[in-house]
């Protein structure tokens, strides 16, 4: 396996805080620094496509993904993202080929997934405790293998975003107009849904099922408030999310705070959002 220790050493050097000297903190920071740009960029499109509910449904299918792993005696670390991918593409197919409105389609999936997960877990009392990890997230236990997966996902996602950012924006404005301009809307949407499902499932690890959507939506929403063009929105979302994860992780490790990492990250991002609201209100005056 590839040795990640130079990466950790670099993180410790760049962030010379006392708390950053522990190995698990360096790992957590590496994981968060990989996740933050991905959720920031995907979040822009989630906001443009109004897919917040979609990402919520995927994150809630984490239960069912874990349950499936337990049922077939497979590693939940693999069944969870795989199942998320299936759910994401499934929702997309149904959305495109059904007359039901998209929130109805997702609502049906959502409840089905949660019910299935709970049904399996409720059979075994000892599993219920394990599930707390997924509700609140636990970035501090991230493994080297998971970080390597994140690096691979990061590369794939950046390639996709470089090739498709403009077309995704076009689809976000109006799909019919994009189609008339020979944008391959269906292909782009499926790729986007698949990648989003993977990003969401990895984020569940970091911030938990309940807060995944926040990690996508909050930076993009704040960026929307302060930027005047689609190009600058990208950089703002990136900046806001990166600074939020760095600040969030470090604050959560302080003796006076000792809060859950995921929740702290989201709180910092929400602070950014409030600031962005003030900036946009002042600008409009």
């Amino acid at each position, binding site marked *: 396996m590839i040795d990640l220790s130079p990466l950790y050493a670099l993180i410790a050097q760049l962030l010379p805080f006392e708390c950053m000297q522990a190995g698990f903190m360096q790992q957590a920071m590496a994981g968060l620094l990989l996740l933050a740009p991905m959720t920031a960029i995907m979040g822009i499109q989630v906001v443009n496509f*109004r897919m917040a509910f979609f990402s919520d449904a995927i994150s809630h299918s984490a239960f069912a993904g874990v349950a499936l792993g337990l049922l077939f005696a497979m590693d939940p670390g693999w069944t969870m993202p795989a199942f998320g991918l299936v759910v994401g593409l499934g929702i997309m197919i149904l959305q495109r080929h059904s007359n039901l409105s998209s929130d109805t389609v997702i609502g049906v999936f959502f409840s089905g997934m949660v019910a299935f997960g709970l049904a399996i877990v409720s059979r075994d009392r000892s599993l219920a405790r394990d599930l707390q990890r997924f509700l609140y997230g636990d970035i501090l236990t991230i493994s080297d293998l998971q970080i390597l997966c994140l690096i691979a996902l990061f590369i794939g996602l950046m390639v996709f975003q470089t090739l498709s950012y403009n077309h995704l924006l076009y689809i976000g404005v109006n799909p019919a107009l994009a189609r008339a301009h020979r944008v391959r809307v269906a292909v782009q949407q499926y790729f986007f849904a698949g990648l989003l499902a993977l990003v969401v499932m990895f984020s569940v690890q970091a911030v938990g099922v309940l807060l995944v959507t926040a990690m996508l939506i909050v930076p993009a929403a704040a960026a929307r408030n302060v930027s005047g063009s689609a190009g600058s929105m990208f950089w703002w979302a990136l900046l806001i999310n990166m600074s939020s994860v760095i600040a969030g992780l470090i604050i959560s490790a302080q003796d006076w705070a000792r809060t859950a990492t995921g929740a702290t990250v989201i709180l910092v991002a929400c602070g950014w959002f409030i600031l962005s609201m003030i900036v946009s209100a002042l600008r409009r005056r």
Partner: protein
Amino acid sequence: MTCNNQATCNRVHRRSMIRQTVTNPLINPKKELAVYFDNVTVERDGLSILDGVTASVPKGSCTAIIGPNGSGKTTLLLALLKEIPYRGRIIFNGTKSVPRIGYVPQRLTFDRGMPLTVNEFLAMGFQKRPLWLGLRRTLQRQSRELLALVRASHLVDRPLGALSGGELQRVLLALALGQEPDLLVLDEPSAGVDFQGEHVFCELLDDLRLRRGYTQLMVSHDLATVTHHATHVICLNRKVAAEGLPQLTLTDENLTAIFGVHMGLVSSRSMPEQRAVCSAPCCQNNADD
């Protein structure tokens, strides 16, 4: 019939010889067609929206689809754009290959809070490099030229969400023209534009069509605009009620049959006699020659 000059006289007589017919390419193979709707049927939930529509759009023409609300005008355009499933065939240029289509929707529904400048909007369909790495100079120039073409140069740096209906319509037209279309499809081009603006908009379109040589297909409920600017009319009311030259198609009995009695009033001010004084380029240059 009185004619004030020889040319008009000839034209009027030639017209009167053409019966109001459907230009079927099998009957009239000489006439080049940009689009031929062959028995197009659209049903939704068992309800028929279009019922065996057979109609043609001559190449280089300004063809207008008219009809009352709910007559399936927009549906026919959506079928053409392959946005909805249909039965029957839609043939382009006598072949199956789809030409470049520039589409200007009736009212662009989009999220007005989205940060996006007009400049970015016009470039995003052409630029390979992602927008967050900046706009290419060549595309910035192209956008400015396109906006100048639709007389909207001042909008280049505005946010797309801050445009008025008429301004948005112009930007959408600029985007469609940027694709160098063989076929320009407009859904209610004058909706959202004030009366004065509407007339200017139509003259602009006529002018561009004659210069660039594309075929224009538009949906309109405004008969005055149609009689002024269209060279070919398709009257639609779930089926094709009539099709042909505007002067021959927009007769009192046809209009009454499609729209009901009151539309006779509108047609009276826009009949052939008055067309002779119209200054729009399309009136001097008719599709029948």
